[in-house]
């Protein structure tokens, strides 16, 4: 907003000097440059920043929509309640577990599949086409299919296929709720990682690998020394973008477990839903959870990922 104020005022000042007219021309130029940007900038500012500030504001108030007239200043009560209430700790832990598991597994699998699709195989194009389908399928539809037609203990395909191994009729969703959510999310995000890493692999010059092979490098050595350093930025990009999405996982939890059993799969977005529009209508508490979500996102986006990447770097150097 500061940049706009700088230029709005003086443009009306009339003066005959060459320097002034040059300055006003510069100002006019700055404005013609800025003008196309403004609608989008103002739109985004209005619809993202104001609600965000309001979320922080509401987090200091006690307000339940079901109780008219309950709006009153509460100071840090909501935050104190969150600290003493176990729900938020469970939700934070579940969010971290879910994100770390999904991203780690889908990066490893995505790298493996990308390398398969980058090697000499039959039907590469069709393989890639089929492989990206899980990412394109509507997440709510995918979760439903997993829950009701693949994992259903009575009629599902998987319990049937596993029955010779003594695992038949096992209710996967209820016995292993978090593992089920992780599995479905990995199914969805592996294609995403694969696409990005494959793009990295395809930018590799095959002659370098060939030269390494001639020089006596084995497959593992050339993977570690040549391929991995090359695709590392692509892995980082995939993991970074992926984790910013996975932190917000909501659809598959809603459809697979509805946060349960108990709070076993309740993550932050789902807790906010339960406390707020999903039944509690506790605006103050829900806003406080929203503030916590922002903090968690910032932490995930910086700290955790940096750690993850330093592991990759150490691996690559060995």
């Amino acid at each position: 907003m500061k940049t706009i104020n700088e230029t709005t005022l003086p443009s009306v000042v009339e003066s005959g000097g060459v320097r002034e007219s040059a300055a006003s021309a510069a100002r006019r130029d700055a404005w013609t440059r800025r003008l196309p940007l403004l609608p989008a900038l103002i739109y985004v500012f209005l619809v993202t920043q104001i609600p965000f500030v309001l979320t922080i504001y509401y987090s200091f108030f006690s307000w339940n929509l079901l109780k008219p007239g309950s709006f009153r200043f509460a100071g840090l009560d909501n935050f104190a309640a969150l600290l003493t209430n176990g729900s938020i700790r469970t939700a934070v832990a579940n969010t971290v577990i879910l994100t770390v598991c999904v991203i780690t597994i889908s990066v490893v699998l995505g790298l493996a599949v990308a390398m398969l699709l980058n090697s000499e195989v039959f039907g590469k194009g069709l393989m890639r086409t089929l492989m990206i389908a899980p990412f394109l399928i509507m997440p709510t539809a995918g979760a439903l299919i997993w829950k009701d037609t693949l994992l259903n203990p009575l009629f599902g395909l998987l319990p049937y296929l596993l029955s010779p191994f003594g695992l038949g009729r096992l209710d996967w969703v209820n016995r292993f709720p978090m593992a089920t959510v992780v599995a479905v999310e990995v199914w969805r995000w592996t294609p995403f990682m694969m696409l990005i890493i494959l793009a990295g692999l395809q930018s590799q010059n095959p002659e370098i690998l060939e030269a390494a092979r001639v020089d006596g490098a084995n497959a593992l050595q050339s993977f570690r020394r040549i391929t991995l350093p090359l695709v590392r930025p692509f892995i980082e990009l995939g993991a970074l973008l992926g984790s910013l999405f996975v932190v917000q996982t909501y659809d598959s939890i809603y459809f697979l477990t509805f946060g349960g059993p108990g709070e076993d799969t309740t993550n932050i977005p789902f807790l906010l839903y339960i406390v707020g529009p999903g039944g509690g209508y506790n605006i103050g508490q829900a806003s406080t959870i929203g503030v916590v979500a922002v903090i968690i996102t910032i932490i995930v986006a910086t700290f955790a990922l940096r750690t993850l990447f330093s592991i990759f770097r150490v691996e690559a150097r060995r």
Partner: protein
Amino acid sequence: MRVTLTANRSKVLWSVVGWLVVFVFFFPVLWMWLEGLKTEPQAASSPPTILFVPTLAEFREVLSGDFPPFFINSAVASIGSTLLVLVLGLPAAYALAIRPVKRARDVLFFFISTRFLPFAASLIPLYLLARDLKLLDNIFALVIIYTTINLPLGVWLLRSFLLEIPNDLFEAARVDGAGFRHEVLRIVVPLIAPGLAATSLICLIFSWNEFFYAVNVTTSVAATAPVFLVSFISGRGLFYAKLAAAATLASLPVLLAGWIAQKQLIRGLTMGAVK
């Protein structure tokens, strides 16, 4: 001779491994299609029915039932917000790439930081605002929200495409005295047609599949396809074939669009970083 033989053998081996992996990942999608082509008793049988005569009965049932309005809502919200993103995003991208404003980098990072603000951080105020403006269960609220979600992505993507246009073209146009509008309509739009396609595709995918806001600010009139699927969660009856048919239809537009535009998909998903 020997070398080519082992090379061929390893190609066959890796192809088999690759196809097995792809089959595992694709199988749930295939199973969804198959279940949708069954009758209800076939879909709810133990052991599962593998061989059957396909029928479109459940697809017909879904299409003649209460599904179409949800599908149309999804289309309105997705297409409406995508158009808004292009209208607002293209000039903004122009101001960040072709004739950049001061501190264009900061503006760019402001845009993208808003994309990764958690949905949870703005749901409550948007919910209250929609309620006060009588926009709860109104498709217009979803258009506004999806535009907000996709605009930062759109600006980044369009900018990355604009940067690829050679500068000479603009200079030549300016020498000829062409104005801003002429520049955009005659030079920018034709040259970044692939960019517009990639941006539209990504916006469509994200808004078509979006569920968090949809389920929270709509109930029935403006509810979208993902919300329609909620009615299948409770295991009241055994509607697995109908469920699969509905899931197939709901997923179809994005699946087809993504398959057709695979190249744009990669670029879009990485916000233009990977070409």
